[in-house]
């Protein structure tokens, strides 16, 4: 498989995951606001913290209110991370390989892209924030379904998987980190109603609330949320689950090598896989959750660099 093709597939999947993730965040955050007591000073600012865009936002907008944040987050053609720009990037990458992906996938991506071109903040007025983002989330599900149902499980698919999972892992750890250390700065609020609401929102943004209730029941406890989102081997958006799949994809990519090296080099995922398969929520919380999450993110970044160097880079 050509590096150019693998690179496009990797980024196409990665940008799609990023766009979907942002749509989920808005959706959940909106609900959180509806349910929260109306005292928070800057209710939309946390969204920017989660994605690390507070500074970029402040450069272009004066006030972080619903309208400005949603605009920046979703529609802004000048913000390279806006949902619209992520969709652009995913589609641009796919365009170069129309002949390698299924026509169904191309059609879906291209339609999404063409629709995104016509978006303006006014569509929120028509469909409502909830309606718009719920619909958007559904469209990402459709893309995922087409990917699942129409693409052969060849090398190209593995690179898409790697791109998607690296992105997903970074997002889930970032979400936990921000919630744990930023969203509730006053220690006396921990365990209070707002805290619990926020944790429920965290679960919901990863579509994990129902899975949580099935496993742990109604009461929401921090260590259990962390357990589910980091260490659960069965939940499809947990860090552990993603890493397990990542290991599989990288192993299969290695097996495609027509001239395999005599000694198979270790996978770049080894350390992360050990961290997530041997660790547990209570220890990392008792230790330092923030440091642990940072370490996971560092590992993801370094896996990304290794994959890029080994398979995608044009030297």
């Amino acid at each position: 498989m050509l590096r150019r093709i693998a690179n496009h597939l990797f980024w196409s999947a990665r940008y799609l995951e990023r766009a979907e993730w942002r749509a989920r965040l808005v959706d959940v955050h909106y609900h959180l606001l509806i349910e929260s007591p109306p005292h928070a000073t800057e209710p939309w600012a946390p969204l920017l913290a989660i994605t690390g865009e507070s500074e970029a936002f402040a450069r272009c907008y004066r006030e972080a209110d619903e309208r400005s944040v949603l605009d920046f987050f979703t529609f802004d053609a000048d913000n390279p991370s806006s949902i619209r720009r992520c969709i652009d990037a995913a589609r641009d990458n796919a365009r170069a390989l129309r002949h390698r992906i299924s026509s169904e996938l191309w059609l879906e991506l291209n339609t999404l892209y063409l629709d995104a071109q016509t978006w303006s903040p006014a569509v929120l007025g028509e469909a409502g924030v909830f309606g718009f983002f719920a619909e958007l989330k559904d469209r990402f599900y459709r893309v995922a379904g087409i990917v699942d149902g129409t693409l052969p499980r060849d090398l190209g698919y593995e690179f898409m998987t790697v791109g998607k999972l690296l992105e997903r892992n970074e997002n889930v750890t970032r979400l936990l980190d921000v919630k744990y250390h930023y969203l509730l700065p006053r220690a006396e609020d921990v365990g209070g109603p707002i805290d619990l609401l926020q944790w429920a929102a965290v679960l919901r943004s990863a579509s994990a609330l129902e899975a949580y209730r099935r496993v742990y029941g109604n009461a929401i406890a921090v260590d259990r949320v962390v357990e589910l989102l980091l260490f659960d081997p069965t939940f499809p958006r947990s860090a552990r689950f993603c890493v397990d799949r990542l290991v599989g994809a990288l192993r299969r990519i290695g097996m495609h090598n027509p001239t395999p090296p005599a000694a198979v080099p270790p996978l770049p995922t080894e350390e992360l896989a050990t961290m997530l398969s041997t660790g547990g929520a209570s220890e990392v919380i008792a230790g330092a959750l923030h440091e642990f999450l940072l370490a996971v993110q560092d590992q993801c970044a370094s896996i990304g660099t290794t994959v890029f160097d080994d398979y995608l880079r044009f030297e």
Partner: protein
Amino acid sequence: MLISEAYDTNGFYDEMFGPGTAPRPGCGRVAADLVAQPPAHLAELRARADRMFLRMGVTFNVYGDEAGAERIFPFDPIPRVIDGETWAHIEAGLVQRIRALNAFLADVYGGGEILKDGIVPRDLIVGSPQFRHAAVGLRPPAGVFITVAGIDLVRGADGRFYVLEDNVRTPSGVSYVIENRVVMTRLLPDLMRACGVRSVENYPADLLASLREIAPAGTARPKVALLTPGPHNSAFFEHVFLSQQMGIELVEGQDLVCVDHRLFMRTVHGLERIDVLYRRIDDDFLDPVVFRPDSLLGVAGLMAAVRAGNVALANMVGTGIADDKAVFAYTPAIIRYYLGEEPILPIVETHLLRDPEVRRAVLRDLDRYVVKPTGASGGYGVVIGPKASYRELAETRERIERDPKSFIAQPVVSLSVHPTLTAGDQGRGPALEPRHVDLRPFVLFGARPRVLPGGLTRVALREGSLIVNSSQGGGSKDTWVLEARC
């Protein structure tokens, strides 16, 4: 009567009906079973075909259309039939031509015997913008310069096939031949079986076999790749189609790298050697070291690898000199010179305007000639005398006077016509009317020649138009070459 009385060929040769509207050899069945049907029914067939093309994604890019809009190549459901005997004649003529042109290229970039012998003027060759100094002294691995040729034929008022021009650089259109057939097979399976139509589906396998045969000596399992300028190219669909059909990698310049005079592609598992490159980009863009330094489409060092004999190109660099419009006038002499045979297919009468006497004669009656620039391909810069305005003629005259050696003139050929389904707009229903057609058969040459039985029949859909190019209202028909009767 198999065709309405209103069908009037205006004295042009009709491909399907002879004098007294009797079907020509091989055409009886199509005339009786298809052409005799009500036009409305034929229009339904065409609509079904259009839907199939769209669904199959058989489209060409429209330049400048970013919204991803693509158009299908207009398709006419009435096939053009060529009987076995006529085809045998055409096929022999095509094979003879590609043999002679290959020998010619090996000679002009080698010893230059034909120039020494004065058969073709030396200055015509070395003075041509199509002459590639980079190809001088090159000996392609199997001695083959032209692996793929598309040779445009027209049928004159006398019913004979004439060669209009050779396309031996990067000829395109073969994917439409194959996809037209796929659609026709679904549309008219019974009629096709009854007629005994020869299959065209072997073309990609034949092409791959030919490409493997020109691989550098000693490559056990030659690796072949198709080099495309990329998705923005108007023929990108064909590049995708052929690479998929042949099961070879479709590469862009950025995928390639030359190391130690060898060509490689960058795969996720490192560099992989390429032995044969089927390139669908022009010479000028192939290697920035040797040709245009600003080209990003090719790969630096390619020509050095070719020269070292480590990679074969199809077609080889410099083949444009063989389809130069001025050299075309000499092709009958070229055939006689290398093969010692008379040309099987005559060429359309061609006048070189570099000759003062010829020039005077042509300029006197410029409105009766088609004037073509010698170096261009794809119909660029062509002026059709009878259709040109007074001003266009004056400008053409001036250009010829300024640079006579860069132009040739041909008489306007009375292209044959074929019953064709008209659009049926402006209040008129669809009807069968005669429209002008040409034929582009495809010839392959590796260790031996292989001719695709058929070719692209292009049809000028506008009434009276002689221009069959898709950009100017042209469409295509399926071409049915019939099994020889045993």
